[in-house]
């Protein structure tokens, strides 16, 4: 008898993991463990007949536990969840979908770098909105359901791309542009590590990402914020990039006094991004001798980018 967990799979017609047509060819043939072969051949059997059932759902959990990148299995799992939701009543929806979200969290914790988990989680959130909340996304408690898992994962790896992408998706989906809570979140991350570029990027999106949305950021407040961050860590490229980003449309001339404090200091080396902006200000002001001089200086202090500075200095 073949059983996993509390389910019996004896009647499942198992399928092989390798094609019979490539028998005898070693290329790319993985020497699967017996355990994996057993699970996967059973799952393939279930998928082949498109069985949608609790035992099929359980099998996807076992396989995803082994290979979280198995996109075919994720898609099959989603089909199972949808079917279960269709077949249960309103109370059932709560239990099934909430359990599913919790399970997603556990898988995410065990697989920090994965392309499928977060997309799947977003699909489950959509199912919850449509089934539990009658399409009203305001009823989904983002703070309770999403923020703790994000915090935990960002604490582990503060620049986890997948997690930040999910956070960006939340801002879009739940219209959190300009949200003080989102801004605080980035401020907290930046207080911890001002070089966390993911936090900077997220902040930019929260403030300026919602093109056409109602929110409009207060430029002067934001300029003050980023200037303070630059002072905390004058050589940090993330905050300089952000400063350049928010000033891109207005031009850099207004930053002249600010950057000069980093270009004229005698006791330490000049700050490259400050020199760079200074050179661009001189260009805006058409002071050719001055900008050439600054680019000459940049060539000396940043020799690996000599060619780059050279091209701008002429």
């Amino acid at each position, binding site marked *: 008898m073949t059983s996993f967990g509390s389910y019996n799979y004896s009647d499942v017609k198992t399928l092989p993991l390798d094609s019979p047509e490539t028998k005898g*060819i070693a290329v790319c043939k993985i020497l699967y463990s017996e355990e994996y072969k057993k699970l996967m051949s059973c799952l393939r059997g279930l998928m082949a007949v498109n069985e949608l059932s609790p035992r099929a759902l359980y099998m996807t959990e076992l396989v995803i536990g082994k290979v979280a990148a198995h996109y075919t299995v994720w898609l099959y799992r989603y089909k199972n969840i949808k079917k279960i939701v269709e077949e249960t009543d309103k109370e059932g929806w709560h239990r099934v979908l909430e359990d599913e979200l919790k399970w997603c969290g556990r898988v995410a914790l065990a697989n920090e770098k994965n392309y499928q988990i977060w997309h799947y989680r977003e699909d489950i959130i959509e199912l919850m909105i449509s089934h539990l909340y009658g399409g009203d996304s305001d009823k989904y408690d983002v703070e309770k359901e999403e923020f703790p898992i994000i915090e935990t994962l960002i604490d582990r790896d503060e620049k986890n791309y997948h997690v930040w992408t999910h956070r960006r998706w939340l801002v879009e989906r739940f219209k959190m542009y300009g949200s003080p809570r989102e801004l605080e979140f980035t401020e907290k991350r930046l207080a911890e590590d001002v070089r966390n570029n993911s936090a900077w990027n997220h902040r930019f999106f929260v403030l300026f990402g919602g093109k056409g949305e109602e929110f409009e950021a207060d430029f002067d407040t934001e300029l003050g914020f980023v200037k303070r961050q630059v002072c905390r860590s004058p050589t940090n490229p993330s905050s300089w990039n952000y400063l350049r980003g928010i000033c891109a449309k207005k031009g850099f001339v207004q930053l002249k006094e600010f950057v000069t404090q980093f270009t004229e200091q005698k006791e330490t080396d000049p700050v490259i991004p400050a020199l760079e902006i200074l050179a661009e200000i001189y260009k805006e002001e058409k002071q050719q001798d001055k900008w050439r001089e600054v680019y000459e200086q940049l060539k000396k202090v940043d020799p690996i980018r000599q060619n780059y500075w050279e091209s701008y200095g002429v």
Partner: protein
Amino acid sequence: MDESNGISPSEKLTDTIEKQLKVENDIQDIYDEVLAQGSDKFPTLHRKAHLKYTGLFLHRELPSAMYKLDASHPWIIYWLLNAHLLLGGTTEDKMGEEVARVILSYIYETDRYQGISGGYGQLPHLASTYAGIMSLALVGDEKWYAKLNRTKIYTFLVSLKLENGSFRMVQGGESDCRATYCALCVASILGILDEKLIKGTAEWFARCQTYEGGFGGEPGDEAHGGYTFCALAGLCILAPPSRIAQIIDIPTLVRWTCNRQYAIEGGLSGRTNKLVDGCYSHWVGGMSALLECVSGYGQVVNRTGLQNYILCCCQAQPFGLIDKPGCNPDFYHTNYVLCGLSMCQHFQVYNEKLGEKEGYAFGYQQIRINDDTIIDNLEANRVLPLDPIFGLPAGYSRTMRDYFRD
């Protein structure tokens, strides 16, 4: 301070700084040792050893621990075979035939569409389709090309296209720059790129460019080397260099790209304030070579610095290539570090006439650099010229494209 990548000694010790300083120190030690040994002992490419690595795994079964890549079979083949050929290896004996047969066993076909899956019995996926078709291109035998059904693959691609111009990886899956790039590569090499397929795609890529200049996976995401590669290479399929310059912001992209290179390491990082990683020698390096064409700008990345990083810091013992010192080799890094090495040794040149005639992606030609001030191009380190758009050594994409000419 003078030599470092700009972290001031008085700054609060954060996660970023701690990791960065550790890598800088490790790599500085390696360079000091290399310099102490004298210039005649400068590391060269361990060609034989790496060929042994790729050859070994192309000829025998893979250890059970590799089940983690069970949804990435075509990638394993593409990485190994591409690296093998870049190093000067061949597909002699039955290797080519075996590779082709295995890739074809991953084909998923219905009466309407055809795509390649991550492994036998799985669903068709755009990344697998890209890796699978590139692997067949590397085998280079028309006999296997004939197994691809262009009409059905076109239907498959159309089914994954989204309203906003991007593509999904798989029905019901995520859409991003990777998926979109893979779709364009496949369509371009099979000669099925048409208006319907590419409507809105260039504009969608442009929306992924961030305030930093690089591109994120989707609009609003952080600029990242992998996605930036996908976006620019994708755009090179969609438009000639002169037009690309009108679609995206070139100066900020050039600035972001050249800032990926670190002064001490010489290697490239994938994002601002992240560590150097050998694989970005391709994602950022290969992209930079295309950017040189598009921007008309000289060298964006310092090739000598990057080649030094690759030769001194990315070669594992006894074989294989790696992310950074202390890492273990894998197929992915072995391929992309070698792609990056090829970029160091060649320029990409866009031939307008050729591009107009054959499709923009086919207008790029590779020229070996013969200028010591740019790169010391020793015979011992030589790898094949790479066409970065498709991620294949020069000529392979053209051969497949010519076969599928209408």
